[in-house]
């Protein structure tokens, strides 16, 4: 069952070496309060971060880089933060680059008990290197394995006290997928409402996926 807790209490779940999924497309829909708390968490060392981007220099997830918390980043678009490029060139972080759709689908697969899947995306390109290829109906497909997290830090608009989540506009993005794919799911929300206040048809993340709720402290990026 879900617990409502402080950012620090929630982030105490992070252990050195963990894989941490972080929602958001750039800074939109990113759990900025949780990211700020991650920076203060003792266990947040040697992390593998799964996120579309690593924020921007000094903003959002970008704050983790100068603090040397990230061992590896898995995502689709790191060039929006030149510090990632520089840290990678210095050999300080490992990077696994996936097409954005393959990234999203890998996370969904991690949460949905899919062992692996085939996509056309990336076939015949540099990103196919080291991947198994299979011809299906005459087209080239690449085999992709799922991504799973130890912890997911996600952002939603409203939660009810059971932990059901509803999202707002394009701040949804990777958040519902990541909610399914990690052992411990921590959701930062604008508001926690009574059970029954969310429409059953607009709950995009049913509460069984969510472990901890944290009220957003409106941390700026």
């Amino acid at each position: 069952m879900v617990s409502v807790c402080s950012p620090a209490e929630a982030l105490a779940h992070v252990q050195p070496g963990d894989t941490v999924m972080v929602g958001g497309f750039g800074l939109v829909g990113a759990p900025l309060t949780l990211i700020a708390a991650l920076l203060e968490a003792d266990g947040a060392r040697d992390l593998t971060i799964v996120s579309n981007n690593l924020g921007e220099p000094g903003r959002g997830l970008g704050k983790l880089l100068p603090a040397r918390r990230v061992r590896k980043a898995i995502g689709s678009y790191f060039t929006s933060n030149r510090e990632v490029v520089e840290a990678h060139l210095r050999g300080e972080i490992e990077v696994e680059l996936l097409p954005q759709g393959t990234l999203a689908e890998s996370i969904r697969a991690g949460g949905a008990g899919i062992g692996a899947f085939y996509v056309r995306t990336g076939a015949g390109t540099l990103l196919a290197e080291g991947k198994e290829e299979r011809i299906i109906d005459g087209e080239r497909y690449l085999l992709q394995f799922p991504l799973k997290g130890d912890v997911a830090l996600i952002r939603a608009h409203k939660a009810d006290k059971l932990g059901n989540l509803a999202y707002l506009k394009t701040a949804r993005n990777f958040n519902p997928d990541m909610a399914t794919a990690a052992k411990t799911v921590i959701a930062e929300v604008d508001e926690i409402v009574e059970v029954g206040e969310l429409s059953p048809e607009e709950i995009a993340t049913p509460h069984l996926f969510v472990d901890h709720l944290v009220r957003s402290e409106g941390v700026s990026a």
Partner: protein
Amino acid sequence: MSSSVSVAIAKRVAAHLTDGEIVNLGIGIPTLVADHLPDGVDVVLQTENGMLGVGPTPTDDAIDPNLVNAGKLPVSELPGASYFASSASFGMIRGAHVDTAILGALQLDGQGRIANWSIPGKPILGVGGAMDLLVGARRVIAATTHLAKDGSQKIVAETAFPLTADRPVDLIVTEHATFAVRDGGLVLIDVAEGSSVEWIEENTGAAFTVALESAAGAPQEAVR
């Protein structure tokens, strides 16, 4: 690249769109296409970060921090818009539910294949949704200046840049020329007013045949 050239390219691309189709716009010149649709043509914009029914850029006081396009720029919501998770958005894209993707290009080869994600000698650290759109959209239009900023040719026999997909685009639109990709090669189907087949031949590094069409989906006047 002057903004007027970008607008000219955007207008030439827009002339190829059909009323009601579902369109995904890449970053840069493609983003301009929405503002230059011919009269009577209205398209529905999908953005891969999880929205169908993207509206125009809001005024400063109407910016919603939770509402951006794939370029992370503020957009607005049209009536009938909907939102969905990234996995669903790319399911739409890979599943061929987007009619047309309009993408920028670094280079294009003689088979119409696009390179638009990576520069040789630099670390490969960004790809975004370009590869997904290329394999998934029913039709892909490359919207690009005919020459690079340094004056070098962008449409070449073989790209020096890594390809984004092995699937060719369907149409290449520059401020000078429009090429259709047919049977594995380029066909020049339109020459912009003020340009010429000769200029295009001199400034295109890939072979092409010429089969000019009187109008590319719209009267010539409408696309300037």
